[in-house]
């Protein structure tokens, strides 16, 4: 059994590789088909002699044929190396940036994710239990509205209300610049707890509230919907009526129903996480959150091939990892799953 799990994990992990390859290839192809390159972005309107241009292209490895570049980068990836940046500045390992930026995105997504799940579970369960009533209808409307909120717009309104008008929450950044925090994991909340730095904890939590609320509420819509629908379905099943026929208490039945309804939701959670990362881009831009989203947008401006490829590949890995974890949770929770 346990050996089975280990093997399963390994094999399941290997399945991430094709995903990464597909995305790398797509991004590589798209980026090279059209004019422009990172060296030009760096050189910009500066008066640089042609030989030096050539020299820079050579350093960046952009003078090689495309297929060589393709496989070169792949080869680097195989060694766990994401390459170096090609613009502003040149030559910094992309992984340095990832190390710096990823925890920010992770922290934001974890909080948003938690918020969305909690809201989704509560509203969805209430809707399902009160099926057909006005409460149900309003939960469903909530779900649709939340889902279709446009993040920058919603974020802006929250910023205005809490940042400018009520003046109670910071509207940008991760932590107040006056607070010193020794970072260990890069997750500020966690770090400040580990180092028992309470001002930092207060500051980082305050900074987190608005962005994660924005993203969390927007994403909760999907959960509300699916939790409600699954709950309705489960509540209709025979075993729920069987529980009732046995005289099991109502709250227990709701709990069992929720457990059953949760199983299909787990699958959604994996996919939702990808959407979450997408939403993080807009959230990060709105709240000046120094994460991966803002990083990739900055890098795109310079067409920093390696940085973009690296980020995409990293995201692909990450998404793959999440879906692996989701699968494992699924397998753990659902006794019917065989692996």
């Amino acid at each position, binding site marked *: 059994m346990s050996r089975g799990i280990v093997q399963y994990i390994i094999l399941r992990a290997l399945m991430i590789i094709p995903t990464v390859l597909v995305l790398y290839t797509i991004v590589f192809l798209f980026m090279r088909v059209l004019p422009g390159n990172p060296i030009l972005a760096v050189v910009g309107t500066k008066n640089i002699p042609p030989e030096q241009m050539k020299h820079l292209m050579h350093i960046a490895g952009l003078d090689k044929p495309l297929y060589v570049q393709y496989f070169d980068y792949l080869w680097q990836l195989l060694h766990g190396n994401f390459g170096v940046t090609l613009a502003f500045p040149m030559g910094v390992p992309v992984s340095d940036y990832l190390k710096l930026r990823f925890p920010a995105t992770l922290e934001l997504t974890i909080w948003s994710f938690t918020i969305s799940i909690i809201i989704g579970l509560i509203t969805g369960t209430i809707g399902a239990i009160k099926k057909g009533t006005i409460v149900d209808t309003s939960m469903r409307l909530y779900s649709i509205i939340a889902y279709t909120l446009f993040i920058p717009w919603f974020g802006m309104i929250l910023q205005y209300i809490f940042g400018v008008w009520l003046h109670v929450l910071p509207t940008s950044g991760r932590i107040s610049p006056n607070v010193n925090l020794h970072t260990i994991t890069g997750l500020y909340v966690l770090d400040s707890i580990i180092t028992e730095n309470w001002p930092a904890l207060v500051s980082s939590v305050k900074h987190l509230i608005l962005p994660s609320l924005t993203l969390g509420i927007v994403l909760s819509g999907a959960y509300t919907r699916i939790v409600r629908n699954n709950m309705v379905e489960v509540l209709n099943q025979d075993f729920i009526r069987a529980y009732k026929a046995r005289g099991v208490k109502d709250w227990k039945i709701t709990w069992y129903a929720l457990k059953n309804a949760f199983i299909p939701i787990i699958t959604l959670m994996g996919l939702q996480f990808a959407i979450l990362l997408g939403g993080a881009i807009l959230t990060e831009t709105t709240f000046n959150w120094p994460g991966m989203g803002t990083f990739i947008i900055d890098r795109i401006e310079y067409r920093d091939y390696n940085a973009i490829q690296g980020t995409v590949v990293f995201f692909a890995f990450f998404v793959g990892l999440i879906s692996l974890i989701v699968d494992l949770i699924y397998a753990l929770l659902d006794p019917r799953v065989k*692996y």
Partner: protein
Amino acid sequence: MELVQVRNLKTYFPVRIGIIDALKRKKLFVRAVDGVSFSIKRGEVFGLIGESGCGKTTLSRSVLRLIEPTEGEVIFNGINILKLNDEEMRKIRKSMQIIFQDPYSSLNPKMKIGEIIAHPLIIHGMDKKEAKEQVLQMLGKVGLTPEKEFYERYPHQLSGGQRQRVAIARAMVLNPEFVVADEAVSMIDVSMRASIIELLEEFRRMYNLSMLFVTHDIAIARLITNRTAVMYLGKIVELSETKTLIDNPLHPYSRALINAAPTISRKKDFKVKIKGEVPNAINPPEGCRLSNRCPFASEICKKEEPELVEVEKGHFVACHMT
């Protein structure tokens, strides 16, 4: 004169296994049909009974090559249909048809009743006008009147019994020589079953049809079939005239099956107890497949597989003990 001959037919399904086994190239099979031979005469209704999962459906589909059998021969009118190519197979389908168990999923919900019945004709080259005429006639024959009105309806506007009539009409409109009816009445309401059986019987008589009639209800088998085979775990364990079989079952499994059937005509006196439930067809027991459940099983049953032998004229049994 035998219309259909099935010889040593085997149909295995690869089992969906976890990715680990898949990578180890461990292959597992459900031996749904595992070496079955029988033949059906012209104008005969051949019954197939057995518990759920014993392979009845698989067998009946394999005979029509709707599933590709793993091994064996199906000889129809002297031709081994398993050797035909796609186009030849398509042509021969005209003379062999099937009626399914579930009247709800066997009709395309997006087609009108008329189109459903007309489509086989059109596929086999009839023009639309002529086809419509034929379909209207057919609707009358299966009792869906007024025909014009039913022609325009969609399946969801029909009751289960009516749908099954449509399915019968679709099968019969091509004038087949051989029809497979896979539990054709088991999902129909009790009070309607009789009429569907009557309808099938009528067609059989009119066209001298041969039929393979699959059911798990022995009472129904008695009603319509001439000969019957009892299946257990992918194998035929007993085959005989239906009445002989019911009145004088020889195989312990047949006996249990017949005894378990509820009846009004007499109070049950004894039971042949068969313990437990059908084992899975991936790893069937060695020897006789019933050996682990059979109250009469002896040593030999656990080792050797019994052959189907003719114990009386036309009465075949596969059991070491008889």
